[in-house]
């Protein structure tokens, strides 16, 4: 709460971003306290991790401090307070947190808890709900992320001639050369980050984790590399149009698992069609779709970062209305 108020009052955007990172981390700890480790993991990697990074990149384009605003949005504040007040007042009679009689614990959840092990065979119930019972929602979420990436591409991608690109990159790179210690530490860390991402990816069935978190962590490693070793080196590893295809492949992988079950005469995303043994089929299906999620999330994060970073130091666009 204190941090949220500080974020609103602060004029220095750099501090605001740092605070929002802390805010994300704090909410993650809240989620841990509420025993929602999967959500906490996602919040930590997305809220505290990658979104802070992306905001920092955006900051390099817009400048560090907020423009002073003259008008005082009193009316808006009043509306927000009234709405928030009503929300609190209106939900006073909702079931207590953790109450065993709360409807959510009595209706749908018991089957998830008691039978998912037999039906799906995955110890992490969150994974079996996300990836099998409600797999279509997750497919939708992946498409949301894909949409966001395509939106960023449509709005920000600038096609430049190679020599122009090289000029911008060398300018960017020269800024990084002095960070020797950072570079070496990063070089040591990156393999572990990548390995951790893969662990999170494939261990999602058993512990907290899964495609979303793994994709974000994987992307974070690449972004870290690009930040410290310069865009041109990073571009040599990852080609822009190549990574776009990768983003598409992730979505298609997820979708085609569904289509295969369609072709086998079962309903869309019914993994039991994938193998003779339904539980083995569920396992395989979850593995494949999590991979699809991971690939798309990682590629989209990298695409967003590259396109934000690619717009820096562009004389035509500098100080234009990117900030609006």
């Amino acid at each position, binding site marked *: 709460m204190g941090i949220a108020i500080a974020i609103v009052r602060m004029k220095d955007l750099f501090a605001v971003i740092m605070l929002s990172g802390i805010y994300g981390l704090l909410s993650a700890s809240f989620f841990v306290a509420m025993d929602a480790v999967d959500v906490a993991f996602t919040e930590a990697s997305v809220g505290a991790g990658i979104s802070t990074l992306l905001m920092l990149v955006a900051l390099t384009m817009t400048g560090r401090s907020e423009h002073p605003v003259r008008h005082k949005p009193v009316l808006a504040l009043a509306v927000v307070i009234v709405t928030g007040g009503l929300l609190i007042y209106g939900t006073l009679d909702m*079931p207590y947190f953790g109450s065993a009689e709360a409807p959510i614990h009595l*209706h749908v959840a018991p*089957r998830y808890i008691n039978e998912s092990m037999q039906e799906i065979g995955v110890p992490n119930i969150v994974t079996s709900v996300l990836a099998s019972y409600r797999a279509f929602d997750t497919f939708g979420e992946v498409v949301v992320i894909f*949409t966001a990436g*395509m939106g960023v591409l449509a709005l920000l991608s600038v096609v430049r001639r190679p020599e122009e690109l090289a000029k911008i990159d060398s300018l960017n790179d020269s800024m990084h050369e002095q960070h020797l210690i950072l570079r070496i530490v990063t070089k040591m860390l990156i393999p572990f980050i990548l390995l951790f991402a893969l662990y999170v990816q494939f261990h999602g069935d058993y512990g907290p984790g899964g495609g979303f978190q793994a994709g974000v962590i994987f992307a974070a490693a690449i972004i870290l590399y690009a930040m410290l070793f310069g865009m041109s080196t990073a571009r040599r590893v990852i080609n822009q149009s190549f990574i776009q295809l990768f983003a598409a492949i992730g*979505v298609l992988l997820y979708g085609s698992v*569904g289509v295969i079950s369609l072709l086998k005469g079962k*309903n869309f995303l019914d993994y039991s069609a994938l193998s003779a043994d339904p539980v083995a089929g569920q396992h395989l299906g979850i593995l494949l779709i999590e991979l699809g999620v991971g690939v798309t999330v990682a590629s989209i994060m990298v695409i967003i970062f590259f396109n934000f970073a690619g717009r820096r130091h562009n004389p035509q666009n500098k100080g234009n209305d990117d900030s609006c």
Partner: protein
Amino acid sequence: MLAHLPILQVIVPMMAAPLCLFLTRPRLVWLFALIVSGLAFLISCILLQQVMTSGAIIYELGGWDAPWGIEYRIDQLSAFLLLIISAVSTVVLFAAHTSIQKEIPVDRHTLFYILYLLSLAGMLGIVATGDAFNVFVFLEISSLSAYALIALGKDRRALWAAYQYLIMGTIGATFILIGIGLIYQMTGTLNMNDLSMRLPEVAHTRTVFTAFAFIIVGVCLKLALFPLHLWLPNAYAYAPSIITAFLAATATKVAIYLLIRFTFSVFGLSFSFTTLPLQILFVVLGLSGIFAASTAAIYQKNVKHLFAYSSIAQIGYMIVGFSVSTTTGLMATLLHLFNHALMKSALFLALAAVMYRIGGVQLSQFQGLGRQMPLTMAAIVIGGLSLIGVPLTVGFVSKWYLILAVIENGWWPVAVLILLGSLLAVVYVWRIVETAYFKPPLAGSEAIKEAPLSFLVPIWVLVIANIYFGIDTRLSIQVTQVAAQSLFGVGPP
């Protein structure tokens, strides 16, 4: 494969979108998108036909039965909406390739079609699903792609308009999410059918009441109900012309669908119309929307702005029909939903053609266009007549039913006000007619030619549909009647 049509309806455009990245040439991508959209249209036709003969279709995703899994539930109402969305999308897409040549840089064309297909898939998904949280997921897909599409507009102000829409749309979506979260908390289920059975038990709690209020406000933001309409005019005016035609005919309709779905199917009629003074609230807001927006339309200098304000007014008519909360009233709303999609897609496509030839749609640029682009202007005139509600056009049919519904309820003053509102439409349509036909062409505009065939064909398909469904009302009346009756729980389920 016939049994899988409900899901194919949504995943065909959804999976076609990433496939577009593998096609290299924009023209190819356009053809591909057109075929996909046409396929979706075909599926929706078969679905509607199936639903009309044998009732609602239920499809369990992942083979899990509801409420544990997600189910698709296609009833008359959703099949009707699916048909409208996919039909408009296909017709509009026909003109897209020509139109965006002049409005969007070539290297963005592929991305344009990807976002277009995603937006289409998102809207189809909202309508097809029977799961409250799934609605939110697809709402995000359709809205995110819509924001990006609007921001692609040629005018720099498009960015600002898209940003405004993004903020308002996100608030709306968040409100809907809060509402869905609260009802999940009170019932433990997300399935709409299941919700409708379990909500009455907890209907007296304040939490459910709050959830209802949040969902209604969120949906009303999305459907641009007066006074929550402020994002709409600029978003429509500065978006690429094709997108204006597509969104004007579909996006707000989907929001109206959600309003009907949540009030009638999820919360149930007796809850919805007794806990909140919804009826009086919506009549007042609907009518003030009609008058405020129609008056604003009269003073617009940009014709896209003009028709955007007219859209807000038309939403007012739909809301008035909704607030009557009788079968006839709901029928009027659904009819107007269909008819307005036909009118506005025709009108905005005609504006896209004008944009293509002239490069702007300021009213002053319309001088003398009646002679230079006779077919396009004739389409605007017929679309305008339909907007006013002249007999033999679709606009007449829906106004007729609306007034019938209002009078049935004994609301005479409302009926008079609706007629007065139509007079305002006469004024703003006349302004265009006057400029286009009775003013001499601007100097130096002799070279303006009629729009190319890729515009004229879809425009006139829509115009003829405007007249055809104004004369032969069997299909639209039958479908809306059955849909309205099934929402009220009478007639076949």
